[in-house]
C-alpha cells in the first residue's frame, strides 16, 4: 500500500509555497491502489472460506465485489468533486473497511449452522449489515464532498456544531436507560432495533468548533498571556468557551463511564490547542493533567469508589490481567491469549476461534483478526492506519488556511489516537476502554462518522494539493471567485 508515488510536497518545503508538481491529480493511482485493495479483500474472503468451509464457494467475492462497486462510486465522485485529493486515503480506508466486512462475515459463517453456511445472503448477519452500513457511509461521505465544496464553509456553522456536539454527547446520558443503554454503556440512542452512537458524530462536530474557535483566537492565545511558573497561560476569557465545551463533554463521558472517549476528547483538545498556539507547554500541561487525573481517579476509585470504581477496576485489570482470569480479567486475558495464539503468522484467516473472545465484533476485533493474521498481518494493518493518519497530517501541512490545518491535523490525530487507545487497550499496553476500531468494528455510527472524517480529509487535501491560483478569480475553484475568507477570522499571520 505504501508503494505510493513521490510526495506532492517534499518535507522541506512548506505548504504555503506549493511547487508545480502539485498539479498532478493522481486519480489513476488511486484507482489502481483501490483495485489492489479490493483484490486483497477478495483473497482474504477466499482464504476464510477455505479455512472455515474447507472449500471456496463462489460467494467469496460477494463482499469484495459489493465494496468495489461502492468505492468505485466514491472514486468517481472524487474525480469530479475533489480531483486533487490525496490518492492514498481512499484505498487505505477501503482496505481496512473490506477486511472488517470480511472478518465480520467470517464470524457469521462461524455462528451459522453448517447447513446454512453456504447460502449466507449478501446483506445477512453482522457482516452483511456492515456491508450495508458501508454503502450508507460512503454515500454520506460523497454527499459531504458534494455539499462542502470548500472546507472553510463549515466554519460558518462552528458554534452550531459545537453546541450540536455537546447535545449529541449528552443525549444518551439524559435519555432513559431503555433508550440509551447497551451492554451497560450508556452511549446510544435506541429506537426499536435501530441504534446510533451520537458520540461518534459529536467528535467531528466538536473538532470543527475547536478548530474554528482556536484559529480565531490564536493570536490572543499565543500573545496575550500571563506567565506563571515559567509557562505562558492564556487569559481565561480567551480560552473559556473551548474549556467549557471540553469540560462538559468530559464530565458527561465520565458519568457515562465512557473513559476511552473522554481520553480521546482530551487528546483532541490538547493537540488542537498545541497546533494552534505552537506552544509545547500545552502538551506538557495536557500530559501532566492527564496522568495526574488518571492517577487521582485511580486513587479515588480505590477509596471513594462511585463513578471512579469502574476506572479503578480497569486499572487493576490492566496491571495484572491474570489476577482474576475467569471473571474481571476474562475479556483482556482472552484477547491476549488470542493474540498470543496467533503468534507471528497467525492461524490463517478463518483459522482462529473467535467464539471464545467476548465482544469480538466490536472492541476486540483487532485481537480476533490478530489471532488469524498474526504479528505480520497486524503490523501491516497498523501501517495502513499510520498511512491514513500521516496522509491526514500531510493534508494539514499542505493546505493554506489555518482553519483547514487545524481541522485536518485534529482529525488525523484523533483517528490515530483512537487506534492507539483501542489497540493499546486490548493488547494490555494501556488500561482497556471501550472504543471502536475505526473502519473494522461492527457498527454504523462509527463507520459513518469515520467516513465523514475521511471525506473531510479528502476535501482538505484537495484544497492543499490544488495548484496555486495566480491572481484573483479562477475557474479552478468550484464556484469560482476569489478564495473565501474564513468566516469571521483574521488572515493568518505568517510567522518568521
Amino acid at each position, binding site marked *: 500500500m505504501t508503494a505510493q508515488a513521490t510526495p506532492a510536497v517534499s518535507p522541506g518545503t512548506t505548504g504555503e509555497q506549493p511547487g508545480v508538481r502539485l498539479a498532478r491529480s493522481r486519480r489513476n493511482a488511486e484507482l489502481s491502489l483501490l483495485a489492489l485493495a479490493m483484490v486483497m479483500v477478495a483473497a482474504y474472503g477466499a482464504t476464510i472460506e477455505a479455512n472455515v468451509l474447507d472449500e471456496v464457494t463462489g460467494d467469496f467475492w460477494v463482499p469484495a465485489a459489493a465494496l468495489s462497486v461502492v468505492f468505485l462510486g466514491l472514486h468517481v465522485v472524487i474525480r469530479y468533486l475533489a480531483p486533487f485529493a490525496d490518492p492514498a486515503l481512499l484505498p487505505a480506508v477501503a482496505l481496512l473497511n473490506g477486511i472488517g466486512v470480511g472478518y465480520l462475515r467470517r464470524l457469521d459463517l462461524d455462528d451459522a449452522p453448517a447447513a446454512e453456511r453456504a447460502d449466507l445472503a449478501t446483506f445477512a448477519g453482522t457482516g452483511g449489515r456492515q456491508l450495508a452500513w458501508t454503502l450508507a457511509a460512503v454515500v454520506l461521505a460523497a454527499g459531504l464532498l458534494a455539499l462542502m465544496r470548500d472546507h472553510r464553509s463549515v466554519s460558518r456553522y462552528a458554534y452550531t456544531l459545537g453546541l450540536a456536539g455537546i447535545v449529541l454527547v449528552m443525549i444518551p446520558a439524559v435519555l432513559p436507560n431503555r433508550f440509551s443503554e447497551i451492554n451497560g454503556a450508556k452511549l446510544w440512542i435506541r429506537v426499536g432495533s435501530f441504534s446510533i452512537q451520537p458520540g461518534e458524530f459529536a467528535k467531528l462536530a466538536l473538532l470543527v468548533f475547536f478548530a474554528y474557535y482556536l484559529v480565531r483566537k490564536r493570536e490572543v492565545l499565543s500573545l496575550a498571556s500571563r506567565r506563571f511558573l515559567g509557562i505562558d497561560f492564556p487569559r481565561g476569557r480567551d480560552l473559556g468557551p473551548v474549556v467549557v465545551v471540553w469540560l462538559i463533554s468530559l464530565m458527561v463521558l465520565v458519568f457515562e463511564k465512557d473513559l476511552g472517549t473522554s481520553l480521546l476528547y482530551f487528546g483532541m483538545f490538547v493537540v488542537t490547542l498545541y497546533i494552534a498556539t505552537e506552544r509545547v507547554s500545552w502538551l506538557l500541561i495536557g500530559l501532566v493533567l492527564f496522568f495526574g487525573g488518571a492517577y487521582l481517579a485511580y486513587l479515588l476509585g480505590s477509596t471513594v469508589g462511585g463513578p471512579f470504581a469502574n476506572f479503578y477496576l480497569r486499572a487493576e485489570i490492566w496491571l495484572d490481567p491474570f489476577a482474576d482470569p475467569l471473571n474481571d480479567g476474562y475479556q483482556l486475558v482472552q484477547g491476549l491469549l488470542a493474540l498470543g495464539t496467533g*503468534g*507471528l503468522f497467525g492461524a490463517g484467516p478463518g483459522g482462529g476461534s473467535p467464539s471464545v473472545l467476548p465482544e469480538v465484533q466490536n472492541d476486540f476485533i483487532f485481537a480476533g483478526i490478530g489471532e488469524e493474521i498474526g504479528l505480520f498481518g497486524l503490523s501491516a494493518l497498523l501501517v495502513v492506519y499510520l498511512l491514513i493518519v500521516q496522509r491526514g497530517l500531510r493534508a494539514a501541512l499542505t493546505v493554506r488556511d489555518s482553519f483547514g490545518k487545524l481541522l485536518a491535523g485534529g482529525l488525523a490525530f484523533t483517528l490515530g489516537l483512537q487506534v*492507539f487507545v483501542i489497540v493499546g487497550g486490548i493488547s494490555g499496553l494501556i488500561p482497556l476502554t471501550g472504543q471502536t476500531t475505526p473502519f473494522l468494528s461492527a457498527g454504523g455510527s462509527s463507520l459513518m462518522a469515520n467516513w465523514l472524517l475521511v471525506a473531510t480529509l479528502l476535501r482538505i487535501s484537495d484544497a492543499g494539493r490544488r495548484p496555486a491560483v495566480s491572481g484573483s478569480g479562477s475557474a479552478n475553484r468550484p464556484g469560482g471567485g476569489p478564495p473565501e475568507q474564513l468566516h469571521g477570522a483574521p488572515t493568518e499571520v505568517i510567522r518568521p
Partner: protein
Amino acid sequence: MNAPLRRVGVVVMVLFSLLFLNLNWIQAYKADEYRTSDYNGRVQVAEYESKRGNIEAGGTPVATSKETAGRLKYLRTYPAGPKYAHVLGYKPVNLGDTGIERAENDFLAGTSDTLFADRFRDMLRVTGEPSGGGNVLLSISKQAQDTAYKQLADNRAGATRGAAIAIDPRTGAVQALVSMPSFDPNPLADHDTGKASAAYNKLEGDPDGPLRNRALGETLPPGSTFKIVVAAAALENGVGKQTMIPAGSSYTPPTSGTPIRNAVPSICPEDEVTLNNAVTESCNTGFAKLGVELGADKIKEKARQFGFEQEDLTVGQLDEAGLPVAASRTGDIQNPDGSANLAGLAQSSIGQFDVRMTPLQGALIAAAVANNGTQMRPYLVQQLLGPDRTTNYYTADPKQLRQPVSSQVANDLRDMMVNVVTEGTGKNARINGYTVGGKTGTAQAGENTKDHGWFIGFALDKDGKPVSAVCVLLESVGDGGSAEAARIAGQIMRAAIQDPGGR
C-alpha cells in the same frame, strides 16, 4: 502551524511504535506462554478435535473417547467406572491429568514423535477424519483386576481403605492394581468444567482420600512382612533355615524398658526356635533379637537391596516415565547422637518404628523371592499400537531391576514362606494345585489407630515357576486384618493364574 503539525506526526509515529513493540512482546515473546495457557480454550478445543486413543486391558477398552455434538468433539469415558481409576487416572478438560492418561498422554493424543508417520499420512489424505491417537495396551489381567477390586471392596474385615497389587514375578508385568476407596473418573472428565470441578472437590474433600493411589503412593509400617528382609539378611550372615535363634515370650532391648512381645502367648514361648519356625509363626521376639544381633547397617542394606529408599521408580513403560512410586524407608534407626538405637532396631526388625513400605514394595519382595532372587522392574504398559492398530510401536521387554538375594537365599526364603501358608499364619491364601508362599503382617500404626493388616505372597505352578506375586494391605482394620489380606491375596493370585494378563 506546520512545525507543531510535524511534531504531532512524530507523536503519532511514537504511539504506533509503542503498539508495534507491544504486539511483538505479546505475539512473539509471550506467544508460547499464551498459546499453552490453562485459560486458553483453544488448546482444549484443539486437543479434543481428534480422537484420543484407547487404553485397553485384556482386549477390552477401559478408557475410550466418544464423539459428541458439543464444542469439544470427543468425550473421554471410562466404561469400567472406578475399577481401573488408579491405573488409568483421568484426563479432565481443565484439571491436571493423572495415571496412564498422563504418562502416555502424547501417544494417546497422537502428538508423540513416534506417531509422526501417522500424522504425515493424515496430512496427505485429502478427506476423512484424522486417525487420532495411538492405543495403549495394559499388562493388567482383567480377571485379577476384577477380583482385586471386588474382594477389596467387599472385604470381610470391614476395612474402608486399602490397596492390592499383583505382579508377574518373572516379568514384572503388573496384573492388578487397586486402591480402595476408588472413584469414578467419568464425572471428572465431564466437558462441563464446573461439574468436573465440583466432582473433583467432593473427592478431594473425602476423608478417606479416594484420589490417593495407595498401591504406589502411600507408605505404612509393614509389620511382620518386613521379617522376610531381616530373614534374608540373617541367611546371608551364617544363619540357616533350621538354625536355632533366641526367642521367648518377651524381649526387652538393651537400651529400652519397653518389652517386645509376641502377638499371642502361644507363639514361640521357648527360648530358642528355628529361623523357619520364627518365620512361620511370625515370632516377634526372635526377629527383634535377630535384628539387634545383625545390626542396623545389615538390615538397612538388605532392605535397600530389595528396593527400599529408591526414589525414582515409576510404573508405566519400562524405559520411560510412568506412575510415580513413593520410596519405602527403613528410617535412621539411630539415636540423635549417632549411636545405634537398639530399641529402635528391635522394633524396626519387626517392621515397626520408622520402617515404611508401599504395597508395591511388598509385592516386589515376594516377587524377588519367588523369582530366584531376581527382581524384575514392574510395568503397566504392555504394548503401544498405532491409531490404525496395525503398527506396533512398543512391546514391553522385561528388565531386571536388581538382584536382592542369591538364588540359594531365595530358595530358603521361599521354603519358609511356603510354610507360612501351609501351616502358619497365611493359611487363607492357599490355592488348590499351586504352591503358595507368603508372609502376614499386622502393623501397629499408633496409640489410637487400629492395626493395619498386610499380606505379601506368591504362587508357583506345578513346575515351581512363579506365576504371580501379590501384596494386599487393609488399613486400620484391627484384629484378623492380615488373615483377611491373605485370603484376598489368594483370590487375586487364583484369578491371575486363570488369566495371566500381559496383553
